[in-house]
C-alpha cells in the first residue's frame, strides 16, 4: 500500500484546506443538476417573471444554439425611410446604415433584439410598444428616425442562391422615433 494515502497522514501532518471531499462531490453533482433544471425551466418559462425575454435566467442557459433547422424561415427586417433631415428612397436596411455608430456595435445582439421586437409586434404582445421604445432608444440614439418593420418568410438556401425576390413580405408597421433633446 503506498505511503501517500489519506489513511497514512499521521506520518506527515499537513493542513486541510477548504471543503471536505464528500461535500465538494455533492456540491459539484448537485450544481450540475441544478444548472440543467434551472436553465430548462427558464427555457419553458416556468421560472416566471424573473425569466429574461430571451427565455434565460442569466447566467444559466440551455445551450440550444442553431437547434431548429427550417426551410421556411421567418425574419424581421427594419428599413430606414429617413434619419434626421435625410430621406432614403428606396428605404435602406438598418444593417446598411453605417452613418449611425450605434448600428455598428453588437450587430448580432441588434439582430436578436429586432427579431424579439418583431415577434412581440406580430403577436400583439402587451409590452410591444415599450419594447419598441427601448429598441429605438438603444439603436437610434440621438437621431430622429422614420422606419418600418416588416416580416419576411423564405427558404434560406433558395434565398442565398437567388436573392430576396421570392421573399413573402408583410409590413408590420411604420414608426417614427424622436430622441429626447
Amino acid at each position, binding site marked *: 500500500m*503506498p505511503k*501517500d*494515502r*489519506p*489513511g497514512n*497522514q499521521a506520518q*506527515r501532518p*499537513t*493542513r*486541510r*484546506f*477548504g*471543503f471536505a*471531499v464528500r461535500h*465538494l*462531490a455533492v456540491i*459539484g453533482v448537485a*450544481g*450540475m443538476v441544478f*444548472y440543467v433544471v434551472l*436553465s430548462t425551466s427558464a427555457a419553458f418559462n416556468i421560472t416566471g417573471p424573473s425569466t*429574461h*425575454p*430571451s427565455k434565460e435566467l*442569466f*447566467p444559466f*442557459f*440551455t*445551450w*440550444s*444554439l*442553431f*437547434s*431548429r*433547422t*427550417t*426551410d421556411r424561415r421567418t425574419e424581421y427586417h427594419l428599413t430606414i425611410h429617413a434619419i434626421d433631415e435625410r430621406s432614403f428612397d428606396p428605404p435602406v*436596411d438598418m*444593417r*446598411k446604415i453605417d452613418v449611425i455608430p*450605434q448600428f455598428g*456595435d*453588437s*450587430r*448580432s*445582439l441588434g439582430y*436578436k*433584439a429586432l427579431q*424579439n*421586437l418583431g415577434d412581440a409586434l406580430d403577436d400583439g404582445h402587451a409590452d410591444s410598444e415599450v*419594447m419598441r*421604445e*427601448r*429598441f429605438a*432608444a*438603444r439603436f437610434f440614439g440621438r437621431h430622429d428616425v422614420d422606419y418600418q418593420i416588416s416580416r419576411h418568410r423564405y427558404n*434560406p*438556401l433558395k434565398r*442565398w*442562391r437567388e436573392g430576396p425576390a421570392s421573399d413573402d413580405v408583410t409590413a408590420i408597421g411604420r414608426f417614427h422615433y424622436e430622441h429626447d433633446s
Partner: protein
Amino acid sequence: MIRRLRKALAGHPSASPYSVEHHRRAFNNAFWLVRIYYAATLLFAYQEMGTIWKLMQTGGSFTPLWPIAWANDIETTGLVILYALIGTALLTVALPDRRWPRVLVFISFLSAAAFRSSFGLGSINHGNHYWLWTGFCFCFLPPGDRRELGGSPSNRYRFLLVFSFAQGLILLFYTMSGFWKAAAGVEALVLGRIGTFHPEALATIVAAKMIQLDKPTLLGPWLTQYPWVGWPVYMFVVYIELVALWIWFRPSLHRLFGVALACFHIGTFLLLGISFPKHVLILTILMIWSPFIPDRSSVRDMLFSLPGFGVFFRRPIRQQVSLDGAGGSVADVTRPGGTA
C-alpha cells in the same frame, strides 16, 4: 451504486492501479493550468475594459440584469465594473494562492457579463459563459501554495476534484447543446420537416446565418453550393456534442475530444462567421491539456473508449489493456485510494 455507475460510464475497467507519481503529476499539471486560466483572465479583463468603455459612450436603453441590480446609471455602473474587473484580475495573479481574489474576480466578471447583456433588449451574450462558469468552479479550489497543497494527498485530491468538476460542467454545456439539436431533429423527422438529420441541414443553417450577417462567411458560399458535404460534418458535430459529458469519465479521450470540440468552434467561424476564442482556450486548458490523461494511451484505447462505437473494438483492446496496463479513469487520479 454511484461507483458502479461511474465504472459503467468509464467504459472498460481501469488496468492502472493508484499511482502516487501519477497523482502528483496530475496535481502539478492542474495547478499550473489554473494559473494559466487566471493569467488569461487578466488578459480578458484588460480587453473587456475597452468593451465596457465603448458601451458607456454608446449609451441607450439600459435594463440591468440581476447581478447589477444595484446599478442606477450607465456611466457610474460601467466605471465601477471596469475598475473592479481589472483590479480583481490583477489581485488574482498577484495573490494566486488565496481564494478570496478568485471569488472577487468571479463576481467582477459576472457583473461585467451582466453589464454587457443589459443593453441587449432581449439578447444575452453567451461569449463569456464558459469562462465565467469555470471561474465559479475554481472558487472552490483549496487555497494554498503548491508545496502546501501538493504535500497532502487529500488536498491534492480536493484540487483535482474541483478541476474535474470544471471539466464536467463545460462538457455538460456541450451535451445540452447536442441534446437540443438531436431532440429538434427527432421532432422534425416525426413531423416530416427539414431538421438536424436532413442532408441539407447545415447548409440551410449557414445560408440563414449569412443572410442575417448580410455577407458571406469564409466557407459558407461553398457549402451552399455543395450542401451534402455538410451532412457528415454536422452529424459528427451532433455526436461529439451529445456524448461530451460521457467523455468526462473517459480520460483517454480528453485530448481527442478537446481537439474535436476546438475544431468545431473553428468550423463555426469558417462557416457561420461566429468566433469563440475563449471557448477554444478553455478547451485547451481543461481538455486538451487535461491532467487526467493516462500516461500511455494508444489509438486502440481511444477507439475502444468511444461512446457508442467502442463496442466494435472491444475484444482486441481488452487483450491489449491486460498486457500493457494502459488505461485509467478520472477516479483513479482524483481518488487517492482509487483502484480498478
